[in-house]
């Protein structure tokens, strides 16, 4: 087990290195193709080459390699990695410390993910399991139809419509009825409110949860179905156990194993969903930070964010694998 974890960690470090380099190269290429972002500092106003040079120095985009198309800018990469070793993550184009920017952006996104994950686990898994238990009945069809429909409706459509209907219309009703600072008045509002991070993120979090919930519900259902027909479930029935025990003790745990993997992957995929959710609900989180920084070729921010996300991704996969081993002893002893 220990050796396995160490091997995984080494692999992760290597992967991280490649990810960072690839991204660095892509960003350098983007600057080489799209032009130096320093120019945008002056907008439509004319600026002398000297003024631009000063801003390039400020942005850290003054390396001449950025003018040569295709140059991998190894020097810059080396410098950045060396800075990182000393825990210096640099500043963004507005001169703010990247670390601060990210530290500020993490909490809302974390809450958002926590809510979505609860939605997946509590709602997705439960309905999936129940649908499997009631296979072929109305509830099952309802769940299958529902998940199919969720797949087909783009998340952003849901968000835009909900913002108006729930945030404004329903919210105004709640605020008129229960008062401005009532729980419902805060839950049903059209944008993030930093005084009530959790409550005001509830609706967008649930909607973000709608992203990927179909997959989780369906997998829970199939996995449960597969296990319900497993020999060991038949054995459990033959042992005269109550059907509740057969389901919970002898089917559920086995069925959850693949679902957990999927929850991990969905979480990683959901970053795309956060960009949209955070954009529409004005949530100052990681998704928006990453999106804007990428559009502006803000190299230090993008690289740092992706590094963090990669590390998170790897930690999550590692955790999932460990959890997998906890849940499935067959893997534990390999």
């Amino acid at each position, binding site marked *: 087990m220990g050796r396995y974890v160490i091997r995984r960690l080494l692999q992760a470090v290597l992967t991280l290195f490649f990810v960072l380099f690839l991204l660095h190269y892509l960003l350098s290429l983007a600057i080489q193709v799209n032009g130096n972002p320093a120019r945008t500092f002056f907008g439509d106003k004319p600026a002398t080459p000297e003024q631009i040079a000063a801003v390039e120095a400020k942005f850290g985009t003054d390396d001449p390699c950025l003018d040569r198309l295709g140059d991998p800018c190894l020097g810059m990469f080396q410098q950045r990695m060396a800075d990182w070793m000393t825990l210096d993550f640099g500043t963004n184009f507005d001169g703010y410390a990247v670390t601060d920017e990210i530290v500020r952006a993490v909490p809302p996104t974390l809450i958002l993910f926590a809510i979505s994950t609860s939605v997946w686990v509590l709602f997705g898994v439960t309905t999936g399991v129940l649908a499997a238990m009631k296979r*072929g009945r109305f509830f099952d069809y309802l769940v299958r139809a529902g998940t199919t429909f969720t797949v087909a409706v783009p998340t952003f459509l849901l968000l835009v419509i909900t913002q108006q209907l729930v945030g404004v219309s329903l919210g105004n009703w709640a605020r008129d009825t229960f008062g401005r600072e009532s729980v419902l008045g805060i839950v049903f509002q059209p944008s993030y409110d930093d005084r009530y991070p959790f409550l005001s993120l509830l609706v967008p979090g649930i909607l973000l949860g709608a992203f990927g919930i179909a997959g989780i519900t369906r997998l829970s259902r199939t996995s449960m179905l597969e296990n319900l*027909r*497993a*020999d*060991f479930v*038949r*054995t*459990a*029935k*033959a*042992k*005269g*156990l*109550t059907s509740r*025990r057969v389901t919970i*003790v*002898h089917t559920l*745990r*086995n069925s959850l194993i693949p679902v957990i993997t999927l929850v991990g992957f969905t979480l990683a995929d959901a970053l795309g969903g956060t960009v949209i959710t955070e954009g529409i609900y004005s949530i100052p989180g990681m998704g928006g930070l990453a999106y804007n920084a990428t559009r502006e070729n803000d190299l230090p921010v993008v690289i740092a964010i992706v590094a963090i996300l990669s590390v998170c991704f790897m930690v999550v996969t590692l955790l999932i694998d460990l959890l997998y081993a906890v*849940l*499935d*002893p*067959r893997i534990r*002893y390999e």
Partner: protein
Amino acid sequence: MTVELDRQGSHNGYVEGLPGYRDDAPLLEVEDLQVEFHTRDGVARAVNGVDFSLRAGETLAVVGESGSGKSVTAQAIMGILEEPPARVAGGEIRFRGVDLLKLSAERRRRIRANHVAMVFQDALSALNPVWTVGFQLGELFRKHRGMSRKDARRRAVELLDMVRIPAAAQRVDEYPHQFSGGMRQRVMIAMALALDPEVLIADEPTTALDVTVQAQIMRLLSDIQAERHMGLILITHDLGVVADVADDITVMYAGRAVEQANVRDTFASPAHPYTKALLRSIPRLDVKGQRLEVIAGLPPVLTDIPPGCAFAPRCGYAQDVCRTERPPLSTVTAGRSAACHFASEVMTDDVN
């Protein structure tokens, strides 16, 4: 000894309070059992009127090809058929006179493992991979007998010991995949015997095992059966095993019993062409230099069983009547019955 302790267990007599219970009734009687499967291809009649009875201390072998309905019969007796798609369409299953099919689901559940237990064929898949063997054994005591975890575990070790698993005290905390095939099957047997049932159904208990291990397991089963005076239903397609351990035999084909008799009589002179064909298809040590016969053709599609004798298309003895009229299971000689228009001729091998 555990056996005696169990006999005094609180469970004993659960079935006694149930409607129809008679102390002197046969241990298990199956009468005209019919099981259907509702599939999108139509209704498949997996079991189509099976009768047999089992006395305490007796071993009944049920043989037939896969698809003949023997496993479904066993699951119907246990009450663990998946419903739907399965449905018991008719018949009775009487345990000491109590018709199990008329009991509520809850009563039925309490009969399982307490009075009727089952050993499944592939122990690796029949044991839950994510729980320890001790947990899966102990669960029976905890849920049926209300024992504490500690006591249950102790009983689990005793059971493992009883089925002759070495170092039982250590192995009780291991997972099924850490056991060898034979050991796993012993665990399976221990589990079936835990609550000391009167009827044990063994569904091909040795198919997945090596030949040497097969013999050990069969010996263990028959030892325990003798010791506890249980009724044993042995489902198998291995006629060699049947010859060694069974008292009576029921041969099934396409959901029906086609021959029922004492094992020795059947082996000596089968009364149904299908039995005959089955017997010919096992290798025999005493007859050398003879080609093994295979049964030509395939069993019928269960959603569409032909009129007349279901075996007719594959039967060397078939006449016109076989294709139009279904032969009932009728007595051929005393204690023997077969479902063949030409049973006596087959028995005497006197058919063209």
